[in-house]
């Protein structure tokens, strides 16, 4: 009566991290080694070179990623279809994308949704995302004041409310107002609407930071600080891929003083826990 052997998935979905090959996890390396092919969107050619030491067949999907002035949906469909084709022909395969595989990655969502209809199994592995690296670059711990984050266009289109006493990350600020891809620099006008919206919650003199985590171990991250009200003058700095960080304007005060007074009380903890069971566990 041995335990049932865990079946290898048909598709591993992994993230390559942000900084070259430095962020690859051991389980990601193992997945690549076990795969018959790795289909990858890497942020450096050297990452592909490294993946080739793990798996004999590495397919670079990056040329499919970005088409000037194009809606990238067709490119994502092609990527996902290529992963499925490889998995149907010779599983297991790995789909690897830089960063974290479930943070701002549409093809991985497509693959997870569609795989069951094709009789394919998927296993997603965690990875270091740009959220992780930005928290380091900005020296922010979400435990202190929480964290709110939105995609820039989504924020504007849905007019999501912001809390000015909670640290805020606005992703993809440089691409705001369009889902089409362009490498052309933005005009100041691109930021007028988002600036007007942010000024409903933050004062114009509030210092914000445009952050871009480094993707190379030799280089430092890019941090550009300016008063929020001058954001439209920084159109040259706000390239695609940047995130805008808005620190809290003020710290939120305690509203429930009664509870705040109890959080270090042992008696209060005892009232919240099954003390007898915990003591029995401690003895064993």
């Amino acid at each position, binding site marked *: 009566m041995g335990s049932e052997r865990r079946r290898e998935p048909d598709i591993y979905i992994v993230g390559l991290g942000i900084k070259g090959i430095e962020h690859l996890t051991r389980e990601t390396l193992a997945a690549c080694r076990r795969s018959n092919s790795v289909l990858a969107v890497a942020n450096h050619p050297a990452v592909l070179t490294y993946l080739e030491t793990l798996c004999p067949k590495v397919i670079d999907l990056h040329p499919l990623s970005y088409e000037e002035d194009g809606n990238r949906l067709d490119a994502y469909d092609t990527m996902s279809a290529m992963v499925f*084709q490889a998995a149907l022909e010779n599983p297991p395969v790995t789909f690897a994308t830089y960063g974290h595989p479930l943070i*701002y*990655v549409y093809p991985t969502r497509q693959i997870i949704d569609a795989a069951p209809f094709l009789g394919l199994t998927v296993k997603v592995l965690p990875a270091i995302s740009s959220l992780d690296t930005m928290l380091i670059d900005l020296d922010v711990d979400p435990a202190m004041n929480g964290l709110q984050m939105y995609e820039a266009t989504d924020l504007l289109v849905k007019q999501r409310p912001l809390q000015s006493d909670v640290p805020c990350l606005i992703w993809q600020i440089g691409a705001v107002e369009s889902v089409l891809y362009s490498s052309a620099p933005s005009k100041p006008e691109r930021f007028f609407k988002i600036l007007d919206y942010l000024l409903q919650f933050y004062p114009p003199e509030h210092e914000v930071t445009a952050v871009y985590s480094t*993707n190379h171990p030799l280089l430092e991250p890019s941090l550009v600080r300016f008063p929020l009200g001058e954001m439209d003058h920084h159109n040259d700095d706000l390239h695609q891929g940047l995130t805008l960080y808005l620190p809290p304007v003020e710290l939120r005060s305690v509203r429930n003083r009664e509870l705040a007074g109890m959080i270090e009380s042992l008696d209060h903890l005892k009232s919240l826990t099954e003390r007898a069971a915990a003591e029995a566990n401690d003895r064993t």
Partner: protein
Amino acid sequence: MSREAMEEILNRSLLDEDFRAALQDNPESVLESFDLSDDERAALVSGKFDDVAVFMPLHCTIRFAMITENIIAMKPHPEESRRAEFERRGAEIVQQEGDRIAVLKEFLAMIR
């Protein structure tokens, strides 16, 4: 030519830890053997991302998730009411042989 040198330096330093350590310890000396302009050399020595990005396309562009469907969609997908239809079409695709890219793309659009 110097663009190629920049590429070589950045790629090699990702894969070769000894080379990277030498660059970090003594960048001027290591970079002497590469065909770089003074500005490129200064950018690499500075270690500043934006300085090096002037010469090399280092910035990754926007990520994948921002598509119109994500932003305006108000429905969960795949649609539960069409599950049987998706299963039937998926099974047909699995039975096919050869290049299935085109039919797989149609299928992905169908379940979107």
